[in-house]
């Protein structure tokens, strides 16, 4: 049997597994909105762990990281900083988001911000920023899926056809089984991608160099420029280093597909352990990625699309069965993020726009069907973007994170009580100025003074938010007492017992 048939067949077999899981999730699902959107707020540690890591790591980690090591060298090992920061943010901020979500039945990030700032404008702006910037993330996954299937099949299945096929599958099981289907498939995908990336990198390192240590020696001898900062093209300047650390930690956590996961946890303790331990998975996935990217720069130095380095190496130098299994892992990485983003955007648009402004007080089943229609629309947009515009996967994800980062001041204002709370005017002005500065520092004067646009924009956002908040009307005393009081009580008062008691009373 030809090797491309084996490789493509294994990817398709994996897809069949996800379809079966989606079908089973559909049988277990009720047409209850909280079950469809939030897994009934019952996600335990193991399921939540695997869905968070599978969602966080996407085509970006599986393909884009290899491409970035290939092009910019060891500097990309700074990825560890943003994965560890993500854990710390989950530990401190995530647990507060969970507590407020449970206490006040929030479903989307905009629910929480609109409630505290007493503003429908805040709700709409937060919803739009969330959806707009995560659509870029849909593009990243769609591009990754297209790369995988076209490389696995030796271009017999085109990039466009591969993208379309895999997007339909991800959208299909999401529409069938809601968040339950996403979580169940994420469990399989999380394990599969981790094993696959390690197995693939080690096999390649042994076959091509005689082992990882010999690989490092070859890189030092032939491409020493890849082993120092700021890298061959001078990319990793101090400003870029800090900017990527911030954009890819805070910026990713504040995206709806991660924030909504906090709402779904069964307890706050689950969230804390999630924050403490997810960096182990997230960070160590970049160890084999370094071997792939740096080794690839020696073996295939003139690759036109660096993001394709991992599948290209596998197809050329690994046995077909292994290539198929590993590319199925890459497919898992992309699909697990794609389905989560589709689900999050569906939730935001259904809950914050449709249910609120277009059709109130309908049956839950009605909203479930509307949500499915929204997924279909998002798939079409994502597909068009992925086949018409191209960008490096890491660049697209960083842009996506920098956009979502603009929600940081508003979110901190809700979750961290202070003596002077932010105001709705401050938060809205901050987001507006932050986005404008982001545009200027990414498009007009890219990364001015060597500092990443994410840093410029969030600095402008915070400055504006604090200044405007000093002169504008704060949320009412009742709201501050209710929401900040709940945070104070949960964190420094009666904890989860008090929260449960408040819900019962």
């Amino acid at each position, binding site marked *: 049997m030809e090797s491309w048939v084996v490789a493509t067949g294994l990817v398709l077999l994996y897809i069949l597994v996800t379809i079966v899981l989606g079908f089973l999730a559909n049988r277990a699902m009720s047409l209850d909105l909280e079950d469809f959107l939030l897994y009934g707020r019952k996600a335990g540690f193991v399921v939540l762990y695997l869905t968070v890591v599978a969602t966080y790591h996407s085509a970006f980690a599986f393909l884009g990281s290899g491409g970035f090591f290939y092009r910019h060298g060891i500097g990309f090992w700074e990825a560890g*900083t943003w994965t*560890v920061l993500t854990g710390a943010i989950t530990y401190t901020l995530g647990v507060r988001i969970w507590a407020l979500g449970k206490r006040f039945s929030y479903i989307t990030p905009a629910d929480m911000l609109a409630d505290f700032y007493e503003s429908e404008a805040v709700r709409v702006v937060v919803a739009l920023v969330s959806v707009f910037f995560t659509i870029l993330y849909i593009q990243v996954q769609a591009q990754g899926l297209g790369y995988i299937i076209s490389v696995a099949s030796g271009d017999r299945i085109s990039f466009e056809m591969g993208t379309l096929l895999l997007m339909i599958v991800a959208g299909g099981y999401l529409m069938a089984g809601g968040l339950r289907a996403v979580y169940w498939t994420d469990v399989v995908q999380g394990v599969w991608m981790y094993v696959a990336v390690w197995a693939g990198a080690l096999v390649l390192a042994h076959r091509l160099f005689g082992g990882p240590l010999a690989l490092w020696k070859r890189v030092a001898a032939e491409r020493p420029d890849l082993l120092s*900062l700021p890298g061959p093209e001078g990319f990793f300047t101090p400003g870029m280093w*800090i900017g990527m650390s911030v954009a890819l930690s805070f910026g990713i956590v504040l995206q709806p597909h991660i924030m909504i996961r906090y709402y779904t946890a069964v307890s706050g303790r689950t969230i804390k352990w999630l924050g403490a331990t997810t960096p182990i998975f997230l960070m160590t996935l970049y160890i084999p990625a370094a071997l792939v990217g740096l080794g690839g720069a020696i073996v295939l130095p003139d690759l036109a699309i660096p993001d394709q380095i991992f599948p290209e190496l596998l197809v050329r130098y690994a046995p077909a069965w292994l290539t198929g299994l590993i590319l199925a892992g890459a497919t898992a990485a992309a699909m697990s993020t794609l389905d989560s983003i589709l689900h999050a955007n569906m939730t935001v648009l259904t809950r914050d726009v449709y249910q609120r402004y277009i059709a109130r007080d309908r049956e839950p089943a009605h909203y479930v069907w509307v949500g499915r229609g929204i997924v279909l629309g998002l798939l079409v947009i994502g597909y068009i973007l992925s086949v018409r515009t191209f960008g490096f996967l890491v660049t697209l994800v960083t842009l996506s994170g920098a956009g979502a980062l603009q929600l940081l001041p508003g979110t901190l204002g809700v979750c*961290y009580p*202070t003596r002077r709370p932010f105001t709705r005017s401050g938060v809205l002005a901050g987001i507006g100025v932050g986005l404008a500065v982001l545009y200027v520092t990414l498009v007009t004067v890219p990364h001015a003074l060597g500092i990443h646009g994410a840093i410029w924009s969030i600095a402008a956002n915070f400055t504006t938010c604090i200044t405007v908040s000093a002169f504008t009307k704060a949320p009412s005393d009742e709201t501050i*007492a209710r929401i900040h009081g709940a945070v104070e009580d949960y964190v420094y008062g009666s904890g989860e017992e008090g929260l449960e008691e408040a819900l019962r009373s």
Partner: protein
Amino acid sequence: MGADGFADVPWRSQLSFRSHYLPRSRSGWIAVLSFVGLMALVQPPIVFWVDTHVGSVWVLGMPFLYIYLGTVYFALIGVLVWAARRAV
């Protein structure tokens, strides 16, 4: 518990909260200072200083920078696990 389900605690009457940005326990301070201190080791300017001055050294057959960053990352995770075990 009050009638609205909130615990009866002093902050309710004054609507002014102690900042949540500063830890309120010894364990909290240890966790925050350890995490911030370790994170500083993998951020500019320290990480660039390490690369410039120790970058040519190799440890266990791998570049020092690679080992250095990895070690600090695991130490940071250690701080988070320590905090979780103590329920900080």
